[in-house]
C-alpha cells in the first residue's frame, strides 16, 4: 500500500508560499469529520505583509497594458481548466457535493475568469469618454484602478465565491489581498498554485487563510488598503467594517452574485484630464 503525499496548504504572499509568521494553523475536516488539512491561520502580520506585497505590485500591474492583463487572466482560465480534477476533488471533499455539482462550479469559475479577462481592455471604452466642454479644451475621463483592494471570499462555493470577487478587481489593474473562505479555503490555496504558474506578477494576488473575524478588522483599518469587497463577510459586520474603513475613506461594497461591469467599476476611480486646444 502506498502512502499519499499530503499537501501542505500555506499562504500566498508576494508570489511565495509562506507559513503564517505566527506559526499557527487550524484543522480542516470534511463533512464526515475526516482530517483534510492544516491550513495556515494567518495573523495580522501576515495581512500586513500581504498588503505590502500588493502595494508594491500595483504600479507594474496597473500600468501593464490592458491587453496584457486580459491575456494573463485568460491564462489563469487555461491553467484552471488543466487542473479541473484537482479543484473538483477539493470541492467535493470540503463541500460534500456531488462530482457534477463540483465540476459545474469549476467550469463556471473558469468561464468567469474568461469573461473578466475579456473586460480588461474594454473598460475605458465603455466607461470613459470625452466630455464636451464649453470652451477651447480637450477633456476626457478614464477609469483607473484604485490600488490595493481587499476581497473577502464567500463562505459558500469555494472556488466560484472567490473568483466572483477576485477577477473583477484585478481585471482593471488593482492588486488584491484575498481573505479565503474560512471553512472552504482549499480552492483558494490551490488557486494560488494556478496563479504562481500563470503569468500574473508576484504580489498582484495575495491569499490569506484563517479566521475572518480576526483578519477583517485589520484589513478594514489598514490605511494602505483602498477598497474592500465585503460580499463574503457576515452581513452583520457591514457597519463595523465600513466604520473602520472611514479613516482613509475606503471604497467598501457588497455585491449580488452576478458578474457585472459594476463590480469592476466599483474599485476604479474616474480621472478627468483637461488640456487647451490651440496653436
Amino acid at each position, binding site marked *: 500500500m502506498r502512502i499519499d503525499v499530503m499537501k501542505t496548504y500555506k499562504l500566498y504572499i508576494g508570489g511565495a508560499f509562506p507559513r503564517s509568521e505566527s506559526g499557527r494553523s487550524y484543522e480542516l475536516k470534511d463533512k464526515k469529520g475526516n482530517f483534510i488539512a492544516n491550513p495556515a491561520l494567518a495573523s495580522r502580520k501576515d495581512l500586513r505583509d500581504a498588503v505590502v506585497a500588493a502595494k508594491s505590485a500595483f504600479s507594474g500591474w496597473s500600468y501593464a497594458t490592458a491587453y496584457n492583463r486580459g491575456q494573463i487572466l485568460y491564462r489563469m482560465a487555461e491553467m484552471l481548466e488543466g487542473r479541473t480534477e484537482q479543484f473538483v476533488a477539493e470541492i467535493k471533499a470540503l463541500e460534500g457535493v456531488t462530482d457534477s455539482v463540483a465540476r459545474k462550479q469549476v467550469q463556471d469559475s473558469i468561464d468567469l475568469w474568461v469573461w473578466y479577462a475579456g473586460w480588461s481592455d474594454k473598460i475605458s471604452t465603455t466607461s470613459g469618454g470625452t466630455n464636451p466642454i464649453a*470652451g*477651447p*479644451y480637450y477633456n476626457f475621463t478614464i477609469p483607473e484602478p484604485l490600488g490595493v483592494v481587499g476581497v473577502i471570499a464567500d463562505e459558500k462555493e469555494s472556488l466560484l465565491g472567490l473568483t466572483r470577487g477576485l477577477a473583477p478587481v484585478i481585471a482593471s489593474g488593482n492588486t488584491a489581498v484575498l481573505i479565503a473562505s474560512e471553512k472552504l479555503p482549499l480552492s483558494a490555496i490551490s488557486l494560488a498554485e494556478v496563479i504562481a504558474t500563470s503569468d500574473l506578477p508576484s504580489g498582484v494576488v495575495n491569499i490569506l487563510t484563517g479566521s475572518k473575524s480576526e483578519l477583517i478588522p485589520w484589513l478594514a483599518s489598514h490605511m494602505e488598503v483602498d477598497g474592500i469587497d465585503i460580499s463574503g463577510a457576515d452581513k452583520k459586520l457591514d457597519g463595523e467594517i465600513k466604520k473602520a474603513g472611514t479613516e482613509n475613506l475606503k471604497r467598501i461594497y457588497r455585491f449580488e452574485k452576478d458578474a457585472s461591469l459594476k463590480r469592476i467599476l466599483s474599485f476604479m476611480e474616474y480621472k478627468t484630464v483637461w488640456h*487647451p*486646444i*490651440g*496653436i
Partner: protein
Amino acid sequence: MSEFGHKLIDGSESSLKSFLDNLPGVDKVGAEGRAAMLGTRSIKTTSKARAIDLAISMVDLTTLEGADTPGKVRSLCAKALRPDPTDSTVPHVGAICVYNDMVKVARDYLDSIGGQSIPVAAVSTAFPSGRASMEVKLRDTQDAIESGASEIDMVIDRGAFLSGKFGSVFDEIKEIKALCGEKAHLKVILETGELATYDNVRKASYLAMLAGADFIKTSTGKVSPAATPPVVLVMLEAVRDFFALTGKKIGVKPAGGIRTTKDAIKQLVLVNETTGPEWLTPKLFRIGASALLNDLLMQRMKLSNGRYSSANYVTVD
C-alpha cells in the same frame, strides 16, 4: 555682442536660432484667457479721464492710403497738434504716421503751426509687404529720414521669418537700424496677422529687439487680425523680459483694429498689468490709429459735460 548692447547672442545665425528656439512657448488659450480677463477691467471716472488723455498722447495718427494728398496730411497734422480745437487741455498726439512721400509735407506743416515737438513717422522698407531688395529698402529709409522723418516704421520680411531665415530678417533690421542711427527711432513691424502663432510673435519680438529695434509694432494695418489684445500681451511680455535680461526698455506699438476708447483702454490695462506703469508713456507705448482719436475725443467730452457726444462735434479727417 557689444554692438547690440547685450550678450544674449553673438551675432551668428546659429546663436540667434538657438536663442529664439529656446524661448518658452506661448499657450494660446492661456494667453487669450489672460488678455480677456484684463479686458474686464472696469476703468471709470478719474482713471478713465487720465486714460483717455494718455491714450491721445500715445496715438500715432495715421493715414496710409493710396489716395492721400498733401491737403489730407496737413489737416491731419492740424488735428495732431490740436485734437479738439475747442479745448486746449487736450494733449497733442504721439506722432503723425504717413507714407514716405508725405513726410516732408507733414514735417513742414507741423513746424509751421507750432508742432515741432510732434515727430513724423514714415512707413519704410517697401511697406506694407516688404517685398523689395535690401538696396531699395535702405534707399526708402534714407529718403524718409532725409525728408524729416524721426521715426521709421519698417516691416520685417515675413516670408524669410516663416521659412526660418532668422539671420536674414535680423540683418535687415540691423542695417536699417544702422541707417537710422541717432536720427530716427526704429519701430519694427512684425505683421503678427501673418505670423500665424503666438510662438512666432514672441520669436519675432525678440528677433527685432536683439537686432536693435527701439519699438516693436504689431501690424501694418493692411492685414487682419492686427493688434489683438493677446498679441499685444505676448509682445509686452517679451519687452518686459527683455528689459530684465538687458536693462533696455523697448517700446510697443499696437496698430490696426483699435477704433474705440474701450479698445484703447484695454491696451493701456495690458501695459499697466504686464510691463507695469513705467511703459505708460508715449516714449514706450504708441497706438497706431486714425478713427480712434475721434472716439477718444467724444468720450472725453462725455466725461467733462455728462452728455454723450455727437460726431458733429469732432473733426472729420
